[in-house]
């Protein structure tokens, strides 16, 4: 029996153990769940050391071509500070590292997010209703602009939702519900896709190892 077949059998049996939860909670499910959590944690630790820590830090601190680059001690020390969160007396030092991460992240992201998620989207909503040509685009543009305006009115709480404001808010919440429905539909499709992927594995990779070819 090859390692590949052993791998397929392990994958198949663990899949079945996990799906057994659909009947009810049981020791097989618990075993597979705990194994997954433990394996994932172990895998990630090793993966991070081998693919992040060593190439991004260690090999720069002590390059293979020789020499020692002391500047790379700085990120090393800052990383060590993060672990000090486990020691209450020294936990304050981890704030230095966190401050650097938060500061860099915010500095780089704030303007980009403002441009991508706000300005460009607002710009995309300010359109001529007849833009694009054809009645379909015309109707689409009207729905989009009405949806945005009414959606914003729904979240405007400084005026009671009565009369015209109430009507617009009702259209806004209706459009929001349609959006949530579309989102739910996509979520269902995603979950079914995962089931299909695993079923394809069981039918077309696992069963053939027992001589069953569909």
């Amino acid at each position, binding site marked *: 029996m090859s390692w590949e077949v052993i791998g397929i059998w392990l994958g198949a049996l663990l899949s079945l153990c996990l799906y057994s939860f*659909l*009947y009810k909670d049981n020791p097989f499910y618990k075993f597979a769940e705990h194994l997954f959590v433990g394996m994932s944690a172990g895998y990630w630790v090793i*993966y*991070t050391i081998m*693919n*992040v820590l060593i190439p*991004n830090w260690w090999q720069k601190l002590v390059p293979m071509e020789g020499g020692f680059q002391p500047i790379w001690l700085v990120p090393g020390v800052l990383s060590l500070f993060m672990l000090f969160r486990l020691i209450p007396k020294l936990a304050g030092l981890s704030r230095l590292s966190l401050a650097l991460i938060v500061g*860099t*992240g915010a500095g*780089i*992201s704030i303007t*980009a*997010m403002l*441009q*991508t*998620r706000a300005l*460009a*989207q607002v*710009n*995309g909503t300010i359109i001529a209703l007849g833009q694009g040509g054809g009645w379909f685009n015309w109707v689409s543009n009207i729905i*989009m602009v009405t949806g945005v305006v009414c959606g914003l009115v729904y979240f405007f709480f400084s005026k009671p939702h009565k009369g015209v404001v109430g009507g617009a808010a009702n259209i806004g919440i209706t459009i929001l519900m349609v*959006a949530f429905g*579309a*989102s739910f539909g*996509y*979520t*269902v*499709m*995603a979950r*079914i*896709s*995962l*089931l*299909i*992927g*695993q*079923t*394809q594995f069981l*039918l077309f990779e696992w069963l053939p190892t027992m001589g069953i070819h*569909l």
Partner: protein
Amino acid sequence: MSTFIEKLGNLDRRVIFVLMALAVIIPLALRMNLPIPIDQGPSMDLYNMIDALPEGSRVLLSFDYDPSTMPELQPMAIALVQQLMTKDIKIVSMALWPMGVSLGNEALIAVSDSLGREEYVDWVNLGYKTGGGVLIVRLGSDIKSVFPVDYDGNSIDDMPVMQGVNKLGDLDMIISLSAGEPGIETWVMMAGDRYNLPVGGGCTAVSAPQLYPFLATGQLIGLLGGLKGAGDYETMVRVGVENPPPGIAIAGMAAQSVAHLVIMLFIIIGNIAYLSEKKRKGGAK
């Protein structure tokens, strides 16, 4: 009659699970194929944009996912690589997710071998680096300082595929296959909007609705959403190809359609049962 419907409304959830399992297993086992009509939409937009690239163009393909989303994103990866390599477009690949490297490599090697393409000449896998958005900003100024060597540890200076590629601006297009953050949105934000590069991609169905607004504004040139997007792309890539390989997503779409019918049926039954019970209780008052 109403009691029967109410009983259906209180059906044991395990019966529903069994029916769902059958709805998926039977179409797959019977190799049922339902037609996948391709209309003008985000999938075709991406296909057309890549199709319009001249031979020898360079595209950055980022594999930003892991095995948990393989059923949706791996068929997209294979179909995209198939189209790019068939058109002789050079692929510079990388990953913002650690496990994406090996999944991307699987797709690249499989298609490259079938089409006779050569690693380092037609494609390269630079590997994974942590950092997400910060990493992309650095790639915008100097790719070689971020990835001095590829996934296998070979210097990228010596690779024909990397000649003339020093920063993101030297590439013709960015495609991200993304299961979340960092992913397509990060590429749009840090590369598309910042360096004015065309960004397209594929994503899981769960994240597709969040990305549709970027299509309307032109920040995304095309998008493959979930298994449907993968099925669309497989269908388009297979047009005109003699003896195409079996489409993984196309096969899955038949099961997907049957499963959706079962879900719709139960939603209708559940609502009828709810209304029937409500009416009965109202009548009892």
